[in-house]
């Protein structure tokens, strides 16, 4: 349970930074990019981009793989899906059931 909270924490922390969200959006548009390609889209040092990619990799949002001599970065959407299942579904479902209850009460009152 604690481990799960820790994992969610890493994902939320990774998503809390605008540069990292920018990097995820770039990978969403075009997956499997090198550090050099990603760096060219940002006004930031290579080291800075590497640091951000490391945080994204630690959170599982980016997976890097070797392809020949290149290291390619891929967007991994699974942790976002898990956040969705754990945090979004749960609360939206409650709202929907609240609306269903309201509908039932209003119809009974008629």
């Amino acid at each position, binding site marked *: 349970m604690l*481990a799960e909270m820790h*994992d969610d924490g890493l994902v939320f922390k990774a998503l809390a930074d605008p540069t990292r969200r920018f990097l995820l959006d770039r990978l*969403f*548009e*075009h*997956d*499997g990019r090198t550090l050099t390609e990603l760096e060219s889209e940002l006004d930031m040092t290579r080291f800075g981009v590497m640091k951000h990619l490391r945080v994204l990799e630690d959170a*599982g949002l980016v*997976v890097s*793989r070797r392809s020949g001599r290149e290291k*390619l970065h*891929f967007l*991994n*959407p*699974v942790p*976002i*899906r*898990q956040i969705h*299942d754990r945090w979004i579904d749960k609360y939206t479902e409650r709202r929907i059931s609240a609306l269903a209850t309201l509908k039932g009460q209003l119809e009974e009152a008629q």
Partner: protein
Amino acid sequence: MTTTAIGTTQVYQVFVKATPEQVWDAITKPEFTSRYFYGSHVDSTFEPGAPFRSYSPDKEQLWVDGEVLESDPPRRLSHSWRALYDEELAGEQHSRVTWELEPADGGVTKLTVVHDELEGAPKTAQNVAGGWMYILSGLKTLVETGEPLA
């Protein structure tokens, strides 16, 4: 709806609190796949060269047709993939799906799915992009809790 330029390689990864053997079973046994993989029944001997097939829940329709390319239980499985559940996709060329299972710290297995060789299957690439994260999230929940995703 945002559109995305889907690449010819897609990578998905999830950490599952289970042994590689347990995760291998979840991938290769129909009693597991039917509970997280759109109800589908996988059918294969998982020996290199053997057919890899996945059937609809009623087992009447062949949904995925392929061939086992590599098999090294419980570490690595690679098979070709042709989606027959949609007419538009059925006309496309084979692509390839590789499952990599690596033991990680704390009794956890790192499961990576690489769906590549999608050059001749752009519609399949678009179609499976959302599916894999749903499937892996479901596999993790099933293996860890014994229950499928609600």
